[in-house]
């Protein structure tokens, strides 16, 4: 029923189709050779809001000796003067494999009766995405270019929940909606969460499909923040992280998905589908990995359904490598990959073997919701921090809160310069994790090892969204009142006639009659019943 809206959207974004079904990307080696010659769907670049226009400028940002901290050239392109800063890795890959995207979207109701689209009720939203690529930048670049379009499409699908038809406003919107969507009451929150989850799925499917037609190498983590309908939705798949800094204290807004944190999920899958292990790995975990001479001895182990340890007697099959091996940052699935959620990696094989890794990876995000529109006050210093693991490996949540607080305090109190404070704070965070080059090593100001990874950070003020949302609520209310007043004055005669015809009681208010007309009709379009009546 929303096909009209959707096709209009498709024309705008150039036709992103949800991909159904995945073909096998693992072909013979000549096929992989062919892959090398495929064209790029999207050229490599840096995030659009940095406004780096030439290849030379992009090359300069990837100076591995200097690792410059890059910030947006024009702060005015950033919603709410949100801060962003990035630094390239210290030489582990030629290019910065992190990517980021910002998108200001507008969901507009395309009611037939509101011919003037400027006067149609609409809902604005703001999206921030951050993607940490590995084994190439293709998947991260693809996600930075497309995920927001897919999310938009998913939001359009639920537009009737987000922006109910104007006539519905006359009565409680709840009873109106239950007519359209009978049965279980579903909250807007769970619909937006669902939109994000299905968008992540489609994004991964799309990358899989594109790997057949284009050169889209590697995989990436995905962390998206969506400010919509007075709330902040944070969807995370991977080891990037979002943290809310409020009253100078940190509060996690996402959970890191790594081989270590998902040990149990991965091992359970391995236990249930041992064929995925290619007879080379085991789903068991050992306190200490057994070797040949341990066969027959007792050893501490745990199965996938255990968090504690137990004893078993070592058999030859225990000499296989555990499916998740290593601790902390060094933990790997199939001895190859250090991240368990995100997009891409469809063709990835375990090192030194032919075992596909993709079955162990998920694109499913965990979505957390923050009620920005609640009663609580937000200050200018309350921010959402989004960062790739380059930031968090060195700088802890608590330390990030300290740096942010200090950065805001130190920033010159000057009205003209105030808008730069979030950029400056983002820069300070990158600086904290990148450190300085001393001799041949990058070290933090405390002399500890700094990260050699790419670092990308957003610092997003919350209060500005709250302000925007309150202003929108006012405008939206006024607009809806105006539209329904216009509709009533044009159509009231018709409606009352029909109400009489249907034998409805006359002593109720006019608006109620209007809705009962609606209820008597199968059409969703708000203008349709009126037109029917005129025939």
């Amino acid at each position, binding site marked *: 029923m929303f096909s009209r809206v959707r096709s209009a959207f498709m024309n705008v974004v150039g036709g992103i189709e949800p991909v159904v079904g995945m073909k096998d990307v693992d072909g013979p080696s000549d096929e992989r050779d062919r892959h090398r010659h495929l064209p*790029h769907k999207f*050229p*490599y670049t840096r995030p659009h809001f940095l406004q780096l226009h030439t290849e*030379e*400028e992009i090359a*300069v940002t990837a*100076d*591995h*000796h*200097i690792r*410059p*901290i*890059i*910030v947006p*050239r*024009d*702060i005015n392109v950033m919603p709410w003067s949100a801060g962003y*800063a990035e630094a390239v890795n210290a*030489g582990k*890959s*030629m*290019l910065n494999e992190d990517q980021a995207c910002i998108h200001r979207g507008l969901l507009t109701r395309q009611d037939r009766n509101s011919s003037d689209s400027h006067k149609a009720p609409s809902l604005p939203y703001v999206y921030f995405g951050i993607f940490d690529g590995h084994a*190439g*930048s*293709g998947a991260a*670049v693809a996600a930075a270019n497309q995920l927001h379009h897919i999310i938009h499409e998913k939001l359009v699908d639920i537009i009737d929940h987000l922006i109910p038809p104007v006539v519905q406003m006359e009565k409680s919107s709840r009873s109106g909606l239950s007519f359209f969507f009978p049965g279980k009451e579903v909250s807007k929150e769970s619909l937006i969460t669902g939109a994000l989850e299905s968008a992540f799925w489609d994004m991964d499917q799309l990358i899989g499909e594109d790997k057949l037609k284009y*050169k889209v*190498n590697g995989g990436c983590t995905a962390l998206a923040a969506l400010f919509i309908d007075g709330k902040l939705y944070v969807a995370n798949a991977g080891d990037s992280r979002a943290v809310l800094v409020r009253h100078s204290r940190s509060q996690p807004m996402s959970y890191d998905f790594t081989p270590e944190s998902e040990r149990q999920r991965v091992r359970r899958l391995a236990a249930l589908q041992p064929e995925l292990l290619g007879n080379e790995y085991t789903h068991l975990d050992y306190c200490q990995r057994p070797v040949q001479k341990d066969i027959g001895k007792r050893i501490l182990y745990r199965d996938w359904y255990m968090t504690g340890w137990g004893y078993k007697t070592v058999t030859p099959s225990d000499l296989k490598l555990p499916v998740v091996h290593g601790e902390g940052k060094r933990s790997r699935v199939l001895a190859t990959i250090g991240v368990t959620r995100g997009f891409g990696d469809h063709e990835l094989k375990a090192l030194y073997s032919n075992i596909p890794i993709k079955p162990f990876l998920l694109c499913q995000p965990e979505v957390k919701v923050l009620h920005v529109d609640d009663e609580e006050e937000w200050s200018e210093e309350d921010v959402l921090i989004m960062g790739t693991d380059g930031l968090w490996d060195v700088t802890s949540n608590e330390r990030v809160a300290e740096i942010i607080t200090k950065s805001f305090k*130190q*920033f*010159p109190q000057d009205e003209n*310069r105030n808008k*730069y404070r979030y*950029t*400056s704070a983002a*820069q*300070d965070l990158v*600086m904290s994790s990148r450190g*300085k*080059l001393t001799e041949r090593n990058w070290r933090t100001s405390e002399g500890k090892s700094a990260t050699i990874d790419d670092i990308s950070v957003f610092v997003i003020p919350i209060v500005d969204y709250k302000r925007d949302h309150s202003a929108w609520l006012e405008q939206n209310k006024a607009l809806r009142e105006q539209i329904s007043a216009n509709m009533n004055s044009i159509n009231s005669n018709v409606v009352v006639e029909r109400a009489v015809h249907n034998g409805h009681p006359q002593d109720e208010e006019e608006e109620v009659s209007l809705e009962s007309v609606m209820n008597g009709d199968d059409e969703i379009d708000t203008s349709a019943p009126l037109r029917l009546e005129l025939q």
Partner: protein
Amino acid sequence: MSYAYLFKYIIIGDTGVGKSCLLLQFTDKRFQPVHDLTIGVEFGARMITIDGKQIKLQIWDTAGQEAFRSITRSYYRGAAGALLVYDITRRDTFNHLTTWLEDARQHSNSNMVIMLIGNKSDLEGRREVKREEGEAFAREHGLIFMETSAKTAANVEEAFINTAKEVYEKIQEGVFDINNEANGIKIGPQHSPTNPSLPSGGQGGMQGGGCC
């Protein structure tokens, strides 16, 4: 375009002395009277010729604000030349030169060529720092000196090119280790002494990697 050498420069000095405008005048030959605050770094590049050789200048323009000082410091190390800028109409920007110079000497490699620049020479009527004072400061600290105007372009070319000449001479004298890119000098592809097909610098980047 191919070049014999690439020199990295850094521009430093107090906020509002005209660092970004000097860069813009040199790279784009234009003047922008109202310039937004520089946060972190900006960069520009231009090709010049010295001794019949093509030399590419890659110039890093830094934030002058105190709040960004620790970040600015991290860019000294990779530079072969520095333009230290003050504003001849603001005495305090001249008074701060010692601090800037200490910073630069401490965090850069010892061979970095430093050019002292008194900018805004077009505003003669508002001059607070005499030309002689600038010259004396430069002499005392072993710097080259020029007064420039980013607005009229007076001496802007010369400032960048004279600094490059000094760096070039030091290369000829064998003072710079040109094989260490951390010194802010990179040998161009046409000039590579060993294997011209290798990416210069040899920073252990992915061989033929990346997606483009």
